[in-house]
């Protein structure tokens, strides 16, 4: 138990050391349930743009999750964000409940399918206030040879007095991982956001970023942190492919799981 606490403190130290932010870039797996385990997760990103007013947007989360049933994974997330440009502050912007509902057993059918649903309640006030948000949609994963490909297709609806648009926003994400070596494997990923469905944005007005990612998983026993549980990490570079996208972005994720 002591070593699990140490793992949690390491994660907390990472949270304290880095700039706080709210993460946009993450591919949800339909197979991650974590029944019988506690999960601590940090998901962060930082963007860069050749225009100073669009640069240095940051996001940062602290997430706590577990499997509530063999088919339902739930997390509570605290999200910090820094808006792009100069003179911006890092603020706690949202508290989010994230839920993944697994519809198929892994490997039983042609693809693994789940439904993702999250609700984000804004907690910032004044000039940092934002909309409450509901996001939902399918998460699909498939193994092909030595690769695993995961796709998310999500709709987001804003609510509340600070909403900036009406209707549903469509976003998508995909990742293909080459399962070469569990502690370190390469992948590629793409993130897109078409904007509000009712407005029909042309391609250059949509957000689209793609790039390489490194992923790995270690048993905590391999790194001297106990006899149970695992540490998973992702680190990626994304390049903007449209005028509306930042020039590039870095993203990273660390996830520690251990049994109750």
């Amino acid at each position, binding site marked *: 138990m002591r070593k699990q606490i140490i793992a949690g403190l390491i994660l907390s130290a990472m949270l304290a050391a880095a700039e706080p932010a709210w993460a946009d870039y993450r591919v949800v797996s339909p*197979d*991650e*349930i974590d*029944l*019988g*385990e506690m999960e601590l997760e940090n998901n962060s990103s930082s963007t860069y743009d050749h225009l100073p007013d669009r640069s240095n947007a940051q996001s940062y989360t602290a997430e706590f999750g577990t*499997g509530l049933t*063999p088919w339902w994974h739930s997390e509570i997330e605290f999200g910090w964000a820094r808006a792009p440009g100069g003179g911006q502050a890092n603020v706690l912007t949202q508290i989010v409940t994230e839920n993944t509902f697994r519809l*198929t*057993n*892994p*490997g*039983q*059918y*042609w*693809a*693994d*399918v789940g439904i993702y649903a999250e609700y984000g309640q804004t907690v910032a006030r004044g000039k940092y206030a934002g909309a409450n948000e509901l996001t939902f949609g*399918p998460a*699909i994963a498939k*193994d092909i040879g030595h690769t*695993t490909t995961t*796709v998310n*297709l999500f709709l987001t609806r804003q609510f509340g007095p600070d909403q900036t648009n009406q209707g549903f926003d*469509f976003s*998508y994400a995909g990742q293909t991982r080459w*399962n070469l070596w*569990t502690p370190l494997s390469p992948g590629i990923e793409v993130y897109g956001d*078409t*904007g*509000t*469905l009712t*407005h*029909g*944005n*042309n*391609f250059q007005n*949509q957000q689209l970023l793609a790039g390489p990612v490194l992923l790995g*998983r270690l*048993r*905590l*026993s391999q790194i001297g942190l106990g*006899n*149970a*549980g*695992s540490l998973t990490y992702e680190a990626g570079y994304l390049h903007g492919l449209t005028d509306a996208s930042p020039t590039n972005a870095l993203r990273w994720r660390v996830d520690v799981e251990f*049994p109750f």
Partner: protein
Amino acid sequence: MTTKTTTRLSLSTLIAVLAMAIATKSPAQAADLPVLQFRDHHFVPDHIDVPAGQKFTLQVQNLDATDDEFESNDLDREELVPAGKSITVYLGPLDPGTYHFFGDFHQDTAQGVLVAK
């Protein structure tokens, strides 16, 4: 490409994928595979030969008084096996080779391999 076109393509793709996902039949049980058991935080047996190139199911039974988790990075599976219960793990098709698995809650003792041939 406008948002509406992107959305139509995405929804069509989604419907096709979901239809394919649920239309595929479940794999048949390979008749002579032993039941994999958690016993005193060890796997019994700790070595199972399985057919390469075809899908199959593996029954995992936990005879211990505490939960454990069947996990394998090689097989990309992570499933809780509650104390006194059994689960079905869907696997394959596997290339010929050796695939390690472990009990995530007792990593020092619960280790095993599937050998696909």
